[in-house]
């Protein structure tokens, strides 16, 4: 019973993704071709999975944060910090294990800072994470001392460009972390508790949920995802660019979550939906390039997507939708449930 519900939940996203991929195939006939060469799969589809990895990783953490009615604007800056830390450690001859553990630790620390501001100082999430968004790139610059730190460690580079069984490693990373997060939050009560906070934080606190600790954990999860995305982005270009790493990716991650059918008002979430959302965004980007449009169209099209989703999600259109749906009174109420769920 659970699997059909999950599928039904992400059905609109899957349809949208399918339509975009079909459009891409119509534009570029070789779009679906996948070749195997040099121990790695090649093709536009693999490219979409690979190029979309940072946004997909960020979207996992962002989904959880948005489910608590929060938002994390700092993920792009945290990516820059973590990329800088990883590059600085590896060039100072620390082992790969130390580098990865320390970098991910820094990411989690950044998340805990955001979480503490939201949970214990009661600052609105937009503002609390804005602080790190503004200061984060400065911190990253301090770590890299203002230059693009390059590195040649094969282990670290593998995280961004390596492949396992022909599949690029970043793809494996986001799929594994996505599945792990889904299992963690959906097979336990954690997901329910996170949704409870999003619906009514005060009521959940009164009901005995440890809202403070849970909010900290959710922002820490977002920091963790940003750290992994930061390592992938740095390893991809074999260097840490404090100015440009993860620039505007927080907005793409939020967009992925929203495209994935999650409400910004919090209270319900689907990690699978967000991941499909990230892939939709990447497919649109690739499609624009394949169609020969200049990449400048990206932003206008993203804006159009947001507007369409806003109109669909808005309470006003829900009222309108429900009005037309319930017009024929004879229709049993239960029959209209799936459609309503899909619309949300």
């Amino acid at each position: 019973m659970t699997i059909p519900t999950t599928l039904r939940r992400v059905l609109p996203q899957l349809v949208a993704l399918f339509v975009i991929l079909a459009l891409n195939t119509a534009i570029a006939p070789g779009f679906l071709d996948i070749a195997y060469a040099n121990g790695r799969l090649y093709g536009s589809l693999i490219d979409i999975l690979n190029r979309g990895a940072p946004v997909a990783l960020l979207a996992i953490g962002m989904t959880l944060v948005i489910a608590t009615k929060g938002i994390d604007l700092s993920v792009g800056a945290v990516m820059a910090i973590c990329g800088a830390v990883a590059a600085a450690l590896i060039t100072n001859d620390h082992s790969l294990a130390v580098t990865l553990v320390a970098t991910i630790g820094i990411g989690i620390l950044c998340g805990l800072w955001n979480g503490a501001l939201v949970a214990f100082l009661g600052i609105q999430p937009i503002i609390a994470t804005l602080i790190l968004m503004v200061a984060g790139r400065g911190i990253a610059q301090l770590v890299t001392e203002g230059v693009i730190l390059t590195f040649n460690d094969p282990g670290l580079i593998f995280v961004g460009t390596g492949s396992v069984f022909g599949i690029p490693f970043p793809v494996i990373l986001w799929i594994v972390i996505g599945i792990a997060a889904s299992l963690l939050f959906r097979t336990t009560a954690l997901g329910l508790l996170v949704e409870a906070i999003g619906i009514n934080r005060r009521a959940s606190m009164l009901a005995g949920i440890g809202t403070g600790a849970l909010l900290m954990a959710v922002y820490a999860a977002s920091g963790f995802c940003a750290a992994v995305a930061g390592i992938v982005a740095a390893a991809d270009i074999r260097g840490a660019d404090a100015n440009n790493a993860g620039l505007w990716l927080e907005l793409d991650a939020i967009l992925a979550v929203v495209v994935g059918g999650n409400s910004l008002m919090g209270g319900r979430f689907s990690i699978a939906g967000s991941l499909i959302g990230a892939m939709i965004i990447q497919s649109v980007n690739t499609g624009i390039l394949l169609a020969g449009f200049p990449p400048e169209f990206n932003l206008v099209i993203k804006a159009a997507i947001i507007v369409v989703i806003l109109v669909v999600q808005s309470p006003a259109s829900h009222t309108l939708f429900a009005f037309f749906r319930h017009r024929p009174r004879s229709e049993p109420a239960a029959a209209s449930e799936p459609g309503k769920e899909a619309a949300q």
Partner: protein
Amino acid sequence: MTSSRLFPLATTLLIFILAYALCYAQFPNILSTRVIGNLLTDNAFLGIAAVGMTFVILSGGIDLSIGSVIAFTGVFLAVAMGDGGMPPLFAIPLLLVITTLFGAAMGAMIHYLAMPPFIVTLAGMFFARGVAFLISTASVPINVDLYDTLQGLYFRMPGGGRLSFIGMAMLAVFVVGIVIAHFTSFGRNVYAIGGNRQSAELMGVPIARTTILIYALSSFLAGLAGIAFSLYTSAGYSLAAVGVELDAIAAVVIGGTLLTGGFGYVAGTFLGILIMGLIQTYIVFDGTLSSWWTKIVIGLLLFSFIALQRGLVWLSSRRNDAAAAASA
């Protein structure tokens, strides 16, 4: 009550005076009118945009689109007056109409779709920057006589400092902003909506009209800021002014405006702009500090002001609780 209302503004003023005194102790020249003139000129476009942001934040909203609107303005003017051959006196009003309508459209979406301002203005941010990209991806120089005239206009202050045209424009926008915020019914409506939207509605404040006007005003001022920016750089570039919205938000918050809305002063934003400009000036004077310290110090200031505001809100709510308990 009045004293606690003025407290954040007084803190900002005190920090500014202290910071200036510290800078003065180290570099006496920082008090010269030349430095002050440059401080006003360099931050003119940010200041103009921050006035609009103050109104948006006072109403409890946020506007992420202003940086993009500034970039769009520059590119539009450069292309319209360059390749388009439009006379400046036609292109500039046309531009201001476009940006105002753009803001009004965002305000209408925020109100009628009942969506968070954050995501609507995010779409606006993508859209304005995207249109700027579509017009031109290159940095387009502006060569018109009007610009040369305006750039040459300045008021010579005692001590040799120059108060440039855009510096004066910023001061004028701040004065007008203060008048609108405190002496018009629109200003009162903005405060009312920011204080409590529901009670404002029950009191008969026209929510729809005011919301649309707030975002229209913000985009109009972003357009003006874009003109000031193009006067400052003599060019239009679609990648310019990235992240200006964050600087503007920071200036508003450092100026003592409450981010939840309903409380703050346009004059505070002016102090916020001056503090941010002072940090940059100090870094230039020092010469050894890297410019990214600006971001870190601004982040620290943001944090301390938000923490200060939370403390004040907490104190006043405790006082209200105590008063309620006493009267019960």
